[in-house]
């Protein structure tokens, strides 16, 4: 166990698993309870009242899913992680430039 904990990959996996259990188990329990209540509603008088908003949300989300699929098919999200590296590179370049300017100014000052 201690050996496993010393391994960073293992430790990360374990933490993730524990956190997942802590979050997901109560969430799933709560959701299942509410979902069963919802199913029980479907048959009776208030049914339409409860089902309609949910149906609306599902329909809108469905449109969203189609748009997403369309975007995927048109070649988007192929290199989704690239911008985060570009952003850091830009920042480094700007900082270096600023440092050079400061040094130039310093040089001029000392002569």
């Amino acid at each position, binding site marked *: 166990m201690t050996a496993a904990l010393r391994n960073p990959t293992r430790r990360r996996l374990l933490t993730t698993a524990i956190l997942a259990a802590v979050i997901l188990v109560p969430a799933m329990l709560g959701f299942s309870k509410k979902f069963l209540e919802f199913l029980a509603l479907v048959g009776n008088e208030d049914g339409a009242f409860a089902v309609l908003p949910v149906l609306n949300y599902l329909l809108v989300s469905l449109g969203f899913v189609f748009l997403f699929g369309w975007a995927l098919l048109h070649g*988007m999200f192929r290199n989704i992680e690239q911008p985060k590296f570009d952003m850091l590179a830009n920042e480094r370049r700007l900082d270096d430039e600023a440092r050079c300017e400061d040094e130039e100014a310093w040089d001029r000052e000392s002569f």
Partner: protein
Amino acid sequence: MFETKSGIFLIAGLGMFALAFLSNGLVPWLMYTNLPEKTVEELIVEQANDPERARSVLTEFRDLHDRYPEAFARYYGEPTVESCAVALREGRRVYVAEGCWHCHSQFVRPVSNEEPRWGPVARSWEFQNELQKPVLFGTRRVGPDLSREGGRHSNDWHVVHFFQPRWTSPDSVMPEYPWFFDGSTHEGPGAPNRRGIAIITYMQWLGSWLKQYPHYHQTEALWPRGIQ
């Protein structure tokens, strides 16, 4: 579409905002178009002409005229429907300007024992008028809900209460409003001025549209019952 700038602008920026506005803004807006927005004059005449009721907001307005004839004549002339409408509009303006609505709500909820405490639960038609544009539901109650306040207290009580709230309600944390009165001394308020008469008329108007006006507190009789 999703990863492009136009996608962000059109779908996220305009589209999703429009979706929310249509479903959560336009729907309730259109739902109440069958209840036309009443003007202040209509509201006053409606209750004054109702044969089933003994009192209306005009009753209280005339009472203010009788109690403070000089101040009343100076600021509002005669207690007519027109001058009452002027006072109500001004009263609402003062209510908003002084931030009253940040410590007093104007709707009764169907939960938490609010019906026995305040009176009938709020209904949509009560708010379809000029004095609820924008609506003054409020989101905080440091002081009591005021939507059923009209007629519960006399005009004299309101004069003292606005001048020094703790003289009528010893635990009150409400600020004093000496600028609602002319000629006050340390011993007490003078006559209510333009704003004073207006805010008191507005107080007396709140809830006056209900058949049961005034609607008195029942809390003391109910008190030992505890939470329902």
